[in-house]
């Protein structure tokens, strides 16, 4: 099993005719993802890697029955792209775009309220259910089908962790990169709830970083309502205050969002926190055992 996406997911790529959109459409197709349509306004009737292009999501839904999207449009157009997908009833929207203004995301958050739409990202690698489908830009081959769920605010750091899991013989049910921005569509708790209901997922790895308080909120949720084992890693213990560490959301400001506070909260909730990046795989194996 897996959460949110699987082999039946029909993906539309928003911004498919752009360089990134085209490249990753090819990569997704190679992984086995059903990329059923692409959207670039004004480019209808073209094909990209054999995938038909439409002017609007509405056309893509009507003609190809798409139910999820992957967004590669430039930052100033991305909020609009998310809202277009949501307005057409897409169940899952993955926004890869980095650099969306925060106030645009404020509008998006308001727009999505009360809609049955799961936004993953922005500024994220996407979501993969290994062996079934990937909607995003992560390298598919480092993953392996299995029973560990992964939720992360990062990109390459997630690949590093997944690689360790796979090498330790631990496959993954679904891996989600929730994004490195301050305002993101869904956060740890949203997906923990889904992993809780997923029979096949036997434990979850959380990868957090400095900034905000999503890890603390997740810790509280896990303690209250989540019975499967959870293992966490937090990046940025050496990050100086008031400096944005690459991700827009990775900043310690006003004494808030520090790694040590997150680690303390996670430990207090009974979550195993791995101190050394090199030991995530082996720690998960120790805690959860072989499948």
């Amino acid at each position: 099993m897996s959460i949110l996406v699987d082999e039946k997911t029909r993906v539309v790529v928003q911004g498919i005719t752009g360089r990134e959109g085209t490249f990753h459409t090819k990569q997704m197709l190679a992984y086995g993802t059903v990329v059923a349509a692409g959207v670039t306004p004004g480019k209808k009737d073209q094909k990209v890697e054999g995938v038909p292009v439409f002017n609007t999501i509405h056309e893509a839904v009507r003609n190809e029955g798409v139910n999820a999207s992957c967004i590669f449009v430039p930052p100033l157009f991305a909020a609009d792209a998310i809202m277009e997908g949501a307005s057409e009833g897409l169940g899952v929207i993955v926004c890869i775009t980095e650099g969306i203004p925060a106030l645009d995301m404020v509008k998006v958050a308001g727009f999505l309220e009360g809609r049955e739409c799961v936004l993953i990202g922005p500024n994220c690698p996407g979501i993969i259910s290994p062996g079934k489908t990937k909607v995003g830009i992560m390298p598919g081959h480092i993953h392996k089908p299995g029973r560990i769920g992964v939720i992360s605010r990062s990109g390459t750091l997630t690949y590093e962790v997944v690689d360790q899991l796979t090498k330790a013989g631990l496959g993954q049910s679904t891996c989600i990169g929730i994004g490195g921005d301050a305002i993101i569509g869904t956060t740890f708790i949203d997906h923990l709830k889904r992993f809780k209901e997923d029979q096949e997922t036997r434990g979850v790895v959380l990868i957090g970083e400095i900034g905000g308080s999503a890890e603390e909120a997740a810790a509280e949720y896990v303690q209250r309502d989540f019975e499967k084992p959870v293992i966490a890693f937090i990046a940025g213990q050496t990050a100086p205050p008031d400096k944005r560490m690459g991700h827009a959301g990775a900043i310690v400001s006003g004494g808030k969002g520090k790694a040590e506070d997150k680690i303390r909260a996670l430990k207090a909730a009974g979550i195993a926190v791995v101190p050394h990046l090199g030991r995530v795989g082996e720690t998960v194996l120790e805690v959860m055992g072989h499948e």
Partner: protein
Amino acid sequence: MKLHEYQAKEIFRKFGIPVPEGRVVTSGDEALKAAGELNGPPWVVKAQIHAGGRGKGGGVKIVRTPQEAGSAAKAILEKPLITKQTAPEGRKVHQVLIEEGVEIDRELYLAVVIDRAMARPVMIFSQAGGMDIEEVAARSPELVRKQFVNPEAGWMPYQARSLVYGLDPLPGPETLKALMSLMALLYKAFITLDCSLAEINPLVITKDGKALAVDAKINIDDNALIRQKEMQPLDDPRERDPLDAKAKEYNLNYIRLNGNIGAMVNGAGLAMATMDVIKLAGAEPANFLDVGGGASEEMVTRGLQIILEDQNVKAILINIFGGIMRCDVLARGVLAAAEKTDIKVPLIVRLEGTNVEEGRKILEGSNLQFMVARSMAEAAEMVTKQVSA
């Protein structure tokens, strides 16, 4: 992007937010002249740098004569200003703001920021102004009041009322009106200019009952700068560490730190985690450097150049996880970079991911001096050895 106080005050003035009259100067003579043109005594002389804690660091002086304004400004401009937010060696002050003094009755706090968890702007108001708001929030949270803004409705008058009618003692009706108007204007500026922070601390109520922004802080959302064209020229690169400024020209995500192990990594999360690994190994990272999740050969070259310009660097750890970008391509990038730059410090390379074997072979087969780490743990051990050697 941070703005200087004087820039923020010019913006406030445009939006109708009352600020004291002032002039920006770059010398003692100009300061003397400026004070002569402004109402006083007293006058206030304020260092213009992007760091808080100026008052305690000696960057804010109250003076009684134009001559004093001149000598105070000269003194501030002459030597680096050290505050709790600057580097230990302090920061050079290039500009000084001379302002008319105001007769202060009360000091309040007002700010707009975006609340991450709520995904909406929030107005923060406190009657304990002039102090570090985080300290106030920690010590007496009841003094910090918040109003979240529905982005569709915008800032509403009832929200201003709910904030100002909590003041104790309650100011007169004209002052309340001025405060409520100021809140609406601050929110308007925040939204119009894509701010990530708009802060007035202190927001002063003068002896004659007027509301005045005696300090002003505006940060613009970096992601929105592309559409805030009028804000772009307000950037002051002199406020950045010289290497940070150069890295910005190279389009690198680089932040200089105080340690001696340089780190080059692809991806921000992995870069932070690599810094942590260096620390766990008993060393201190010299920098944060993210050359991008799909780093190109060119970015790797530029990254190495920046690290090597930092004289404190005693060893370099390159940590690359090849995803879509293949390790062999990255290995060639490292080689090319090493050939273009004279590397005199030990280089530890840790490659993982797509085509890793090929990448390692390329590195090991070259005549450049590398230590190839096969895992994160091994990389850490090598770093420790370099530090203790």
